[in-house]
C-alpha cells in the first residue's frame, strides 16, 4: 500500500441503497478497492476471498449482528474497523469500541465526517507501511517542509532546520491539518504531559515554529491560534 487510497475496504450493510451511496462517495474520494456485503455470510466470504484493510460494519444484519461478525473476523486478522449503525445507545457505542473497533459512527451521518474518519483510521493503522513511501512534503504557501528530514525550504532555496520539539508539534498539527488541535493534545503528543506547566514552553515553541514557517510570523497565515482552545494548521485555500 503506497497511499491510503490503495487500501481494500469491506462495507457490510443490509441496506443496498446505503451501500451504493457509500461506494459512490468512497470512490469519489479516491478509494479504488471496495467490496460490499449485505449479510454476515457474504461478509465472511468476501473476507476469506480477499482480506480487507478496513471494514465498515453495520450492526443489525439479516443473519446476525455486527458485533459477532466483527469478533469472528478479528479472530482471523487484525483489521481496523468502523461501526456504522442506527443504534445510538451509549451502551452499543461503548460495546463496539470495547470490542476493539477503531471508531463508531451513528446514522444519520455526514458523508464528509465518515470520509475523514476512514482517512484517520487508515493513516493511524498503516502509518509504518505508509511512511516507507516518502510522504509528500508539507507545502505551506511558498515554503516547503520535509517532515522526514525536519527541514524547511524557503522560496529562495535557503533551508532552516527544525528542532525535535518543533518537528513533533508540526507532525501533530500536519496530521490534523485543517482541524483544531487543543493545547492538551499538543502537549500530550510532544511531552506526554498535561498542558499545565507547559503553557509558556508551548507558546515559545509555536513562536519559533512560526518564525520558520510563516512569511510574516506576526500575522500567521498557516499556523493559526484558536484562542483559548489550541492551534490549527490551515489548508492552503483557507489562508
Amino acid at each position, binding site marked *: 500500500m503506497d497511499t491510503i487510497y490503495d487500501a481494500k475496504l469491506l462495507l457490510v450493510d443490509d*441496506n443496498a*441503497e*446505503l451501500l451504493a*451511496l*457509500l461506494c*459512490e*462517495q468512497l470512490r469519489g474520494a479516491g478509494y479504488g478497492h471496495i467490496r460490499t456485503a449485505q449479510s454476515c455470510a457474504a461478509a465472511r466470504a468476501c473476507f476469506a476471498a480477499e482480506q480487507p484493510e478496513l471494514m465498515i460494519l453495520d450492526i443489525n444484519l439479516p443473519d446476525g449482528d455486527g458485533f459477532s461478525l466483527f469478533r469472528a473476523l478479528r479472530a482471523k486478522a487484525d483489521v481496523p474497523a468502523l461501526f456504522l449503525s*442506527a*443504534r*445510538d*445507545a*451509549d*451502551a452499543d457505542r*461503548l460495546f463496539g469500541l470495547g470490542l476493539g473497533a477503531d471508531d463508531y459512527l*451513528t*446514522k*444519520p*451521518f*455526514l*458523508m*464528509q465526517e465518515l470520509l475523514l474518519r476512514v482517512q484517520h483510521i487508515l493513516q493511524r493503522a498503516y502509518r509504518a507501511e505508509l511512511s516507507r513511501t516518502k510522504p509528500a512534503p508539507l507545502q505551506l504557501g511558498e515554503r516547503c517542509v520535509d517532515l522526514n528530514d525536519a527541514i524547511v525550504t524557503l522560496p529562495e532555496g535557503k533551508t532552516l532546520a527544525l528542532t525535535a520539539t518543533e518537528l513533533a508539534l508540526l507532525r501533530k498539527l500536519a496530521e490534523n491539518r485543517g*482541524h*483544531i*488541535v*487543543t*493545547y*492538551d*493534545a499538543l502537549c500530550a503528543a510532544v511531552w506526554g504531559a*498535561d*498542558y*499545565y506547566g507547559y503553557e509558556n514552553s508551548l507558546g515559545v515553541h509555536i513562536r519559533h515554529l512560526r518564525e520558520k514557517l510563516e512569511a510574516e510570523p506576526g500575522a500567521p497565515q498557516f499556523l493559526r491560534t*484558536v*484562542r*483559548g*482552545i*489550541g492551534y490549527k494548521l490551515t489548508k492552503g485555500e483557507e489562508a
Partner: protein
Amino acid sequence: MKTFVRLIRRYVLAAVGIVLLLLFSGVAVLGWLGWQEGCRLPQREYSSSEIADSMVETAEGLAFGAERTPQEWMNGYEWAMVLDDVGNIRWSYGLPQELNHAYTPGDIAKFARWYLADYPVFCWTEPYGLFVIGLPKGSLWKYSIYSSPDFALSMVRVLPAAALGMLLLGLVLCFWLSWRGAKRLETVANGLEALAQGQTVRLPTDGFAGELAEKLNQTGAQLQAKNEMLSRRDNARTQWIAGVSHDVRTPLALILGWAEQLEQDALLPDSSRQKATGIRTQCEKLRTLIDDLNLTSKLEYGAQPLRRKDLRAGPLFRQLVAQFCESPLAERCEITLEQEEPAEQTVLSVDEALLARLLENLLNNSVRHNPKPVNITVHTRQVGERFCLTVADDGIGYPAAVLVALNAAEPAENAPHILGLYVVQQIAAAHGGTAVFGQNTPRGAKATVWLPVK
C-alpha cells in the same frame, strides 16, 4: 430501635404501676373490711379477763368489783358464772335456767373451745374457780387453728421472699411479653420503612400484629403492582421512541448522503445545489431532534445511565469547543472560550458524552436561532463548591415565550418547542446541577449551567 426501647419501658412501667395499684387497693380493702368487722363484733365494755380479775370474795360469796355496777361490767355479755373445781356453779349472773346445772369435765372441755348451748363463751381460770362468760347467741363465730411450729416460723421467713419473687416474676413476664410484642411491632415498623423506600414487603402474619402485617403485605403488593405497571409503561414509551428513532435513522442517512452528493455536484446549477444544502441542513436538524427526543425520554424515565468520569474542566471544554468548531454550524459563528484559572483546574465528575450534548445543544441554539452570524462566548468559572458554565451570544436573545416555558414547572399545551434546551436542563439535573436561561446584556441569549464540583 428507639421506639422498641420506649415501648418496652412503657410496658414494664405500666405493669409495675398496675401491681402497685392492686397492692394498695388490696390493703385498702382489707383495712376497710377490718374496720367493718370491728364495728360488727359484739360491743363489750370490758374483756372477759378484766371482768374475771375484778371479781372479789365478799361475805356473801363472790361478787363483781365494787368500782362498777354489775350492769356496767356485763355490758355486751348475756350471762356469767363461776364453776368450782368439781364443776358445780359457785356463782352466776343472768344465767338462763337451762344452763343452771353442774358441768362435767367433758362439758367444760367442749364449751371452752366451742359454744355452750349456742352461746359463744370465754373462760378464764382464777384462784376462785373457772370464770365462764357468755355472749349473745349468734354474735360470734369461733374457729380453732392448728399448725406445726415450723410452719408458722417458715411462713414468717418465706413469705416476704415469696412476695418479692412473685413481684420479680411478674416483672420478668411483663418484660418478656412486651419484648415479644415490641419485636412483632418492630417487624411491622421495618416493613413500613421498606415500603417507604419502595422495596417489596413480605411479613410473617402470625402473632398479635398479624392483621397489621397482613394489611401491610397487601399494601406492598398493590404498590408493587402499580410501580411495575408504571415502569412497564415508561419502558414501553422509551422503547417505542428508541425504536422509532432507530428506524428513522437509516432512511435519514440516505437522504443526508444524497443531499450532500447533490450539494457537491458541480454539474448542477447553483439553485439546485442550494436546495440540496437546504435538504442537508434540515436533515441535520432532524438528526439533532431525534437524538434529543431519544435522550430526553431516557433521561425522563431514568433509562439513561450516567457514565461519570473524573475530568479536568480545562482540557474537557477545550476539546468540546474544538469539536464544535469543526462542525459546519461553526461557520456561522465566532466562538471564544474563556476559562478562569481555578475553573480550568477543577475536576468534574461528569458523563462526557452527555456534557458534550449539553454544550452542543447550547451552541446549536445560538447559531440556529439567529439569522445573522453571532459571537458566542463560552465562559467557565468556579464559585465556591460549584462550577459555572456560561454560554452567551450577542444575537436576538431567547423569545419571551421560550423563557416562560423553560421556567414553568409543567409543560404548557402550546409551549414553544424547546426540546434542545429542555435536554440541557435534564442533563444538568442528572449531574446534580441546574441550568438557568436568561438574556445577555446588552443583547443576546445567556445560558448558565451550574454543576457540583467533585
